[in-house]
């Protein structure tokens, strides 16, 4: 490498000052703090988008410019103020997600236990869920609307249906994660089955269960919004559908941004709980502790 570039310089193909400057610029980019680097990428994309729309004279109904979307975001935030109608729609969607996620947790744990702890469940039930997992579950949306009507019920049932699978699979996989050595240790200490489950298997399963929950919370949001698209005239999804039928794509983008923020918030909440509950699972436990000046040992 060095040899090559040096000989290239000697032969005068690339002058040394240019090579050095290029390397310095690349180093500067690589050493940027992550927040600034991310902001830089977003800004660049927005700027490029704005330029393409303006120079290409692209109509709003095909692609609104970021500045137009930005204006709409301000409008949308205004409609999200307390007492405004959009806040109510958002609250409807949040309710659907949380109820659906709650139902998925209950059924997911129960079925995951069944599948993970019994031979019958493993043999007879697991293949069924693996097959169902491979189907596009969102295609069931009209079925749920037909069964549960246009109200909130069909929305949270689809949200639950979409998010139950990763919880089942996470729970079942987690219960299988206990090692032979650990089981032998508990056996040698004459542990009761209850203790083997609660003091060993369940805790071993937690990181896997949380991995499932993180996928599930996002799936619940997808399910709720999809059900709103398909029927009922309620929730945030309906607002997006309405804006889209009016070809107000700037508003559509603004509403999607709000939904994305909701998704990120829900995901971060689960990730935060995971970090609190399974802090011991971090491979960097030793480093973390050094960095935090032994706060782990003191607080727990």
């Amino acid at each position, binding site marked *: 490498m060095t040899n090559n570039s040096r000989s290239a310089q000697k032969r005068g193909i690339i002058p040394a000052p240019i090579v050095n400057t290029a390397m310095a610029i690349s180093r500067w980019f690589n050493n940027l703090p992550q927040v600034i680097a991310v902001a830089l990428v977003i800004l660049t994309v927005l700027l490029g988008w704005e330029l393409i729309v303006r120079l290409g004279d692209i109509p709003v109904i095909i692609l609104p410019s970021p500045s137009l979307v930005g204006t709409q975001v301000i409008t949308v935030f205004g409609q999200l103020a307390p007492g405004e109608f959009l806040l109510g729609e958002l609250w409807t969607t949040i309710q659907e997600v949380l109820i659906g996620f709650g139902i998925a947790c209950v059924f997911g744990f129960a079925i995951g236990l069944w599948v993970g702890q019994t031979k019958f469940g493993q043999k007879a039930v697991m293949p069924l869920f693996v097959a169902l997992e491979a189907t596009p579950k969102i295609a069931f949306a009209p079925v749920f609307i037909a069964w549960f009507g246009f109200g909130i019920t069909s929305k949270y049932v689809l949200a639950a249906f979409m998010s139950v699978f990763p919880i089942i699979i996470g729970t079942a996989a987690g219960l299988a994660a206990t*090692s032979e*050595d*650990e089981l*032998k*240790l*508990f*056996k*040698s*200490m*004459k*542990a*009761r089955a209850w*203790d083997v489950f609660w*003091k*060993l298997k369940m*805790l071993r399963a937690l990181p896997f269960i949380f991995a499932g929950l993180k996928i599930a919370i996002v799936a619940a949001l997808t399910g709720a919004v999809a059900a709103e698209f398909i029927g009922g005239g309620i929730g945030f999804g309906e607002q997006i559908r309405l804006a889209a039928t009016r070809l107000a794509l700037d508003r559509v983008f603004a509403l999607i941004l709000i939904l994305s923020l909701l998704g990120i918030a829900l995901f971060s909440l689960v990730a935060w709980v995971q970090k609190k509950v*399974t802090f*011991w*699972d*971090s*491979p960097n*436990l*030793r480093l973390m*502790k050094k960095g935090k000046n032994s706060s*782990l*040992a*003191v607080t*727990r």
Partner: protein
Amino acid sequence: MNQPSATAQNSAQYRIEDVSHTFPGTDIEALQNVSIDIKPGSFISLIGPSGCGKSTLLNAMAGLLTPSQGQILINGQQVDGPPEDVGIMFQKATLLPWRTTVANVLLPIELRDGAQAAKAHTDDALAIIETVGLKGFENAYPGELSGGMAQRAAICRMLITEPDVLLLDEPFGALDELTRERMDLELQSIALSRNATVVLVTHSIPEAVFLSDTVYAMSARPGRISEIIEVDLPRPREMDTLNHPDFARYVGRVRTALNEGHGVHND
């Protein structure tokens, strides 16, 4: 119920009577007609190539498996499930990562007598932790411990119930040589101070000779005892013992016994 006392007199007597074991579904004899009489307070080693059944024998002694033939007696009673007063340790420390060192050490008491009893033994646990040099790491999580430190914590967990018998399945097999020698010294002093009966499964000849009163050399397929070597070196043994000519002779004898058991003859 288990009063801490460093000078516990014990009289645990293990008898292994004509034990054979074939794993279900196979016709490989893991153990064939093995009989050992372990004197109370003595330190014995089971050594041999993999497949000689040394771990199978230890598991049977720990009540973790029932041999297909013969019987194992502790204090005259047949072993049927993990016996009282027996502590066991494996090659892997197997600490629970969500528990601090103290909580890991107290686990056997918590499982036996409940969380209240475990809490009442906290001071005992801290004392044992200090004796193995883990002071300052009582509240550390296993993810913060090195391999040697984790094995020390596992030793504490084994000792918290004040067992008369220690069953050790290659406890330091995963540690580096220097750490291992230091751990061997500590193990000896623990065994001596508690007058514990110790059964060590190992694949290291020097370790077996250094620690044991009696070394049982085993051969594979079928697993059986090929030779019994009494090690008559003064105790406590120290690092210097390793340089003793007698030590080298014992090591040579065990090696010869193992080679013969393997079908390799030295003329």
